[in-house]
């Protein structure tokens, strides 16, 4: 009995995780696959039973949000998708072992850049995650990653940048020229997990110095 090749039904079943928002995605090998439906199951690594993900049974879209089901960042999970075509052909594919702690990427921080006459203040806002602590409050990235820190850079001109950094959230670049435009970039780093966010960029102009006008 020659096993039928059904790889065209289903490919690339994987988790995409960003700030602990864990989305399962997959592809169909066919250019258009109107008559294929997909069903998702998941489980913790080490457990026997696969659990059906409610809301992702016999769906036609190619993604499923498993954030709540994979919410323990100290745990390891698997998910699998079964594709079923109208003609009765089916294929099932499983993800690699998933750990959101290891796999999640970090989005750019949320920052408020406040121009003054001779300085620019930058306030980094905490990034909350979908992960809840025992008492129900949402953990921030700083709660999850103890070695998280911020790196800030202010482009003064083509050859000169100023740098600040640390774990605190309030920074100020001082000694700047009034009424001048600057480009600020702020990134998040998590050394232990070799994670680095894309930059948040703000373009701000210092205020004119009214003292001399």
């Amino acid at each position, binding site marked *: 009995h020659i096993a039928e090749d059904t790889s065209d039904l289903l490919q690339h079943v994987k988790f995409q995780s960003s700030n602990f928002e864990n989305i399962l995605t997959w592809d169909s090998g066919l250019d258009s696959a109107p008559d294929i439906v997909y069903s998702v199951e998941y489980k913790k690594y080490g*457990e026997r039973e696969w659990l059906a993900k409610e809301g992702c049974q016999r769906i036609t879209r190619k993604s499923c949000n498993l954030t709540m089901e994979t919410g323990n960042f100290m745990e*390891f999970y698997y998910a699998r998708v079964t594709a079923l075509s109208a003609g009765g052909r089916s294929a099932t594919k499983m993800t690699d*072992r998933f*750990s959101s*702690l290891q796999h999640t990427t970090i989005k750019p921080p949320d920052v408020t850049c406040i121009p003054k006459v001779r300085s620019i203040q930058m306030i980094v806002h905490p990034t909350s995650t979908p992960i809840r602590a025992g008492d129900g409050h949402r953990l921030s990235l700083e709660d999850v990653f103890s070695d998280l820190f911020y790196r800030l850079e202010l482009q003064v001109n083509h050859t000169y940048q100023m740098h600040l950094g640390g774990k605190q959230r309030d920074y100020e670049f001082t000694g700047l020229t009034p009424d001048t435009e600057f480009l600020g970039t702020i990134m998040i780093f998590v050394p232990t997990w*070799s994670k680095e966010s894309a930059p948040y960029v703000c373009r701000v102009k210092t205020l004119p110095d009214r003292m001399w006008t």
Partner: protein
Amino acid sequence: GQEFQFGPCRVEGVVLQELWEAFRAMKDIVQAKDNITSVRLLRKEVLQNVSDTESCYLIRALLKFYLNTVFKNSLDKAADSRIRKSFSTLANNFFVIASKLQPSQEKEMFSTSESARRRFLLFQRAFQQLDIQAAQTKAFGEVDILLTWMEKFYQ
């Protein structure tokens, strides 16, 4: 610099991030070979709620097991040179840590060491219930679970 503090046992000179980088280089390959998704060797009962004093006994037993049983003859199976380099980094660092751990042998520590031994035996029995090849592959693929736990003692 940073060091491991497993209760009274301190280990300097090991950079945890290097261990992570070494394991990440081979993680997908190793874990993809483990298709027994319903068995986990380093289960919660082995690693959860380990006291500081217990941790030194437990980590020493686990690292020695990895060196003597899991990593043994794995190096020659690692055909890919990138994997071989990562594998050596991991094994060498495990050896350094294990050799620096000197848990107390005093009588009053007997109950603590016994508790650590029971935890280790849970892991070892689960390992022995699998075919040796599958067990080595699974244990190798669970190094990230071990490193995640070790990180709590890295300051």
